[in-house]
């Protein structure tokens, strides 16, 4: 029984046959390789039946196989006209000849219809018994090596009609009649790389040869001949090249006899021919508990069952079992780690670019995955299973034979893994899974990146808008402030310049008047004129002071306004010998008063002072300043002669002016007589 999977058997054609001796015609001999089982003539060696004879069969073209199935057909109608003892060799010589290099091969399996068949000695088989017709089947390992010709050797053996003389055939004459030789080259469809690999043993084996372990047959098995060797004995399988393995399989003999002889197995893989000092690349102790695989069952051993790298060329197998004759093994199989070869992915018939990941464009309906197995795995019937896996998409594996297309409806947007696994011919899935990340893109608006980008953009836009607005407003405010500040500075500068330049000169003028008056003996008229000049200059200084005070932004407060009004009243009235009593709070709210308002109020106030000075004939003026609700109130009470019934002339004009000035700043001005005499001028300025 071969490893799982159908095989391919191919008839080997021969174009010539050469023998050491042939008793018939060349035509007869050619009938042996004519490919037809019918026919009664063939190769015979009578009378040289007491000598070893050989025949070589040259192949029409070189053949390779992991096994050759040889058929020997004896239909000469002569009873028992079959070989007594024979062996089979092959050659890879380009010009195969009887004298060429031949390699004897151990039959891994044989069967005979008619006589009994048994193996004797090195590579030899013997036929015994009697039969009118005979068909012998012998399977020899092909070792996947090039074979250009097969050699059949026949040896004289005793036991025939001539008791004292060994003969090559079993017929009465000691001859044989091989009417047909047929070979089928069998390539078992198997991923088992150990199949038909050379096997040797540390010590002789009993029953069959060590190659029984790799002959693909469970019916054959091998075990040490000396049952007491224990762990000393080992089989060594040459996998013919260093291979990275997926799994190993150990199989017990199928007849159920002494199954416990496959237990406590030590397995070791070596990359180089194992000698004492070489450490294995991988080793395992299998079924150390003394259990054993049931007949017909396979023990699958994977990398993780042992330690090291699951790779090597030489596989040594021994056993620590205390039972005699261990290990007894029917078959050892080794399966290489398989990789998917070519791979393509189509979305709606369009091939997608393959990178480390595959990106499926938006809106694809169907995906198809095309898996091509590497050439070495072009075995018919090899199964590959695939699935798309991930993002909650737990899909069952889909089976497919070999490569080819597999279609999927395109899954929802997400990240998946396309997984593919090759199934070994023993039915085990290759542990190493082919993985390909697949990203199914969502529609543009579904993509988180786009959504995030949109959100970010939105927030950004909002932010920038707000920032812009804030900045704009801030800029405006800064500009306002700068304007204010600049204005403030400018006003201060103007005030200072006016004071320092104009005021100072005017003041200087008034002082100079006194100097002139003192220095020179002037006529009285000149002194009077100078005095008028001095008066005008003084008024000019006072007027300038008022303007400059109003312009100076440092005075834009209620407290300063109050101070200045008091100062003006004092300065104006005191020289006139009018006392200026003051009813003024010591503290004022921090209330700004604009320059325009201050100046208008100041002018109105000075007008009122003039009125009092000129018309009231008062000796005391009481200045009352108040902050009443929204208004700043200025009241001048004099102790003069009061108001006439009808205001007229300059006084009326003055009142008109005062009212006009206060109206201009939203205020009011009233003049009323006091009960105790005199008059009250009240000016209200809204703040």
């Amino acid at each position, binding site marked *: 029984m071969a490893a799982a999977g159908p095989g391919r058997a191919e008839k080997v054609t021969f174009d010539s046959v050469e023998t050491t001796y042939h008793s018939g015609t060349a035509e007869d001999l050619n009938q042996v390789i004519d490919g037809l089982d019918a026919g009664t003539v063939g190769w015979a060696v009578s009378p040289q039946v007491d000598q070893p004879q050989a025949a070589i069969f040259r192949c029409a073209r070189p053949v390779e196989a992991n096994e050759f199935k040889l058929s020997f057909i004896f239909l000469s109608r002569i009873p028992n006209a079959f070989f007594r003892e024979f062996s089979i060799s092959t050659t890879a010589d380009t010009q195969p000849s009887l004298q060429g290099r031949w390699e004897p091969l151990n039959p891994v399996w044989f069967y005979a219809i008619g006589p009994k068949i048994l193996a004797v000695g090195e590579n030899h088989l013997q036929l015994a018994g009697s039969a009118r017709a005979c068909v012998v089947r012998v399977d020899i390992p092909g070792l996947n090596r090039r074979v250009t010709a097969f050699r059949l050797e026949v040896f004289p053996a005793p036991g025939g009609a001539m008791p004292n003389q060994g003969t090559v055939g079993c017929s009465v004459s000691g001859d044989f009649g091989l009417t047909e030789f047929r070979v089928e080259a069998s390539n078992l469809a198997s991923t088992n790389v150990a199949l038909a690999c050379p096997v040797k043993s540390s010590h002789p084996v009993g029953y069959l040869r060590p190659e029984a372990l790799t002959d693909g047959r469970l019916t054959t098995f091998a075990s040490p001949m000396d049952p007491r060797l224990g762990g000393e004995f080992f089989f060594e399988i040459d996998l013919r090249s260093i291979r990275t393995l997926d799994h190993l399989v150990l199989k017990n003999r199928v007849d159920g006899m002494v199954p416990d002889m496959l237990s406590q197995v030590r397995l070791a893989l070596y990359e180089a021919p194992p000698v004492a000092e070489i450490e294995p690349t991988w080793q395992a102790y299998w079924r150390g508990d003394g259990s054993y695989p049931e007949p017909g069952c396979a023990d699958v051993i994977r990398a993780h069952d042992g330690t090291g790298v699951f790779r090597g060329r030489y596989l040594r197998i021994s056993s620590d079992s205390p039972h005699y004759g261990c290990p007894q093994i029917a078959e050892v199989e080794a399966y290489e780690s398989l990789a998917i070869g070519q791979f393509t992915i189509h979305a709606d018939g369009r091939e997608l670019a393959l990178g480390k990941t595959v990106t499926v464009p938006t809106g694809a309906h169907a995906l198809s995955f095309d898996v091509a197995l590497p050439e070495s795995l072009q075995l018919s019937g090899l199964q590959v299973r695939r699935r798309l896996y991930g993002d909650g998409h737990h899909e069952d594996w889909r089976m497919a034979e070999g490569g080819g297309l597999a279609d999927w409806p395109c899954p929802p947007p997400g990240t998946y893994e396309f997984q593919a696994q090759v199934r070994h011919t023993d039915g085990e899935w290759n542990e190493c899974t082919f993985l390909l990340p697949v990203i199914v893109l969502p529609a543009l608006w579904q993509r988180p990146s786009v959504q995030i980008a949109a959100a970010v953009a939105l927030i950004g836009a909002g932010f920038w808008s707000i920032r812009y607005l804030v900045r704009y407003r801030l800029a405006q405010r800064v500009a306002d402030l700068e304007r204010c500040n600049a204005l403030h500075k400018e006003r201060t500068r103007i005030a200072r310049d006016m004071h320092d330049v104009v*005021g100072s000169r005017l*003041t200087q003028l*008034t*002082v100079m008047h006194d100097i002139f008056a003192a220095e020179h003996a002037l006529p009285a008229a000149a002194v009077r004129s100078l005095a008028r000049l001095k008066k005008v200059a003084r008024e000019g200084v006072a007027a300038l002071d008022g303007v400059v005070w109003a312009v100076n932004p440092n005075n834009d407060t209620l407290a300063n306004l109050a*101070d200045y009004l008091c100062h003006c*009243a004092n300065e104006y009235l005191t020289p006139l010998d009018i006392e200026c*009593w003051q009813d003024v709070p*010591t503290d004022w709210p921090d209330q700004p008063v604009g320059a325009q308002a201050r100046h208008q109020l100041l002018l109105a106030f000075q007008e009122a002072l003039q009125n009092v000075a000129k018309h009231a004939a008062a000796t005391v003026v009481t200045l009352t300043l108040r902050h009443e609700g929204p208004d700043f109130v200025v009241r001048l009470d004099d102790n003069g002669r009061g108001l006439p019934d009808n205001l007229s002339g300059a006084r009326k004009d003055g009142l008109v002016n005062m009212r006009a000035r206060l109206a201009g700043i939203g205020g009011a001005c009233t003049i009323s007589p006091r009960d105790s005499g005199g008059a009250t001028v009240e000016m209200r300025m809204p703040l």
Partner: protein
Amino acid sequence: MTTATPSIRIALVEDDRHFANTLRCFFQLAETVNCAVVFPTAEDALREVPSLAPEVLLVDINLPQMSGVELVARLKVTCPAVLCVILTMYEETALIFDALKAGACGYLLKRTPPQEIVAAIQQVRAGGSPMSPQIARHVVSFFHTSRANDSGLEILTEREREVLALLSKGFMYKRIADQLHISLDTVRFHLRKIYEKLQVHSRAEATMKYHGRQVEE
């Protein structure tokens, strides 16, 4: 313009050379006041005043670099005997009050008639301290809100407070003297004392502000 009293040695700190020379010219005519030097900057004054030792120093507030207020404060330390009078173009009460707190014992506006300036210098020399009602109110307000002494105005004597109260009502020195039945000189004496207490208190408050990190101006 009496000639009976010896002339008062003064110096002027004024960056307006024309105005300074004109005023100095007037002082020479007046003879009661002897203006020896005009310093164009506070720095010059600060360097020269200790050796010059004028009796009265007229100080402009707005000077090119160091202000008149700061000059007064510094001279109060180096030459406490020099009487500083602020001579300013501006009727800026707050600024003037700062100068008074710094140690000035009076202030005059430049546009004040020069005879009055001379009179004021004489008054100051005689121990007086000219104070306007506005300044009086600032003083009242200062002592009222002062943190240097929890008793506030109590740092001032009863009489000082009475003088201040009357002055802040705009009463003239004469009326105050009459009302309080004291002499005019006593009124002036009280005002000088008030100025001194203002200065001492200002320094104390400044120190407290420094140590106590008071935010209040």
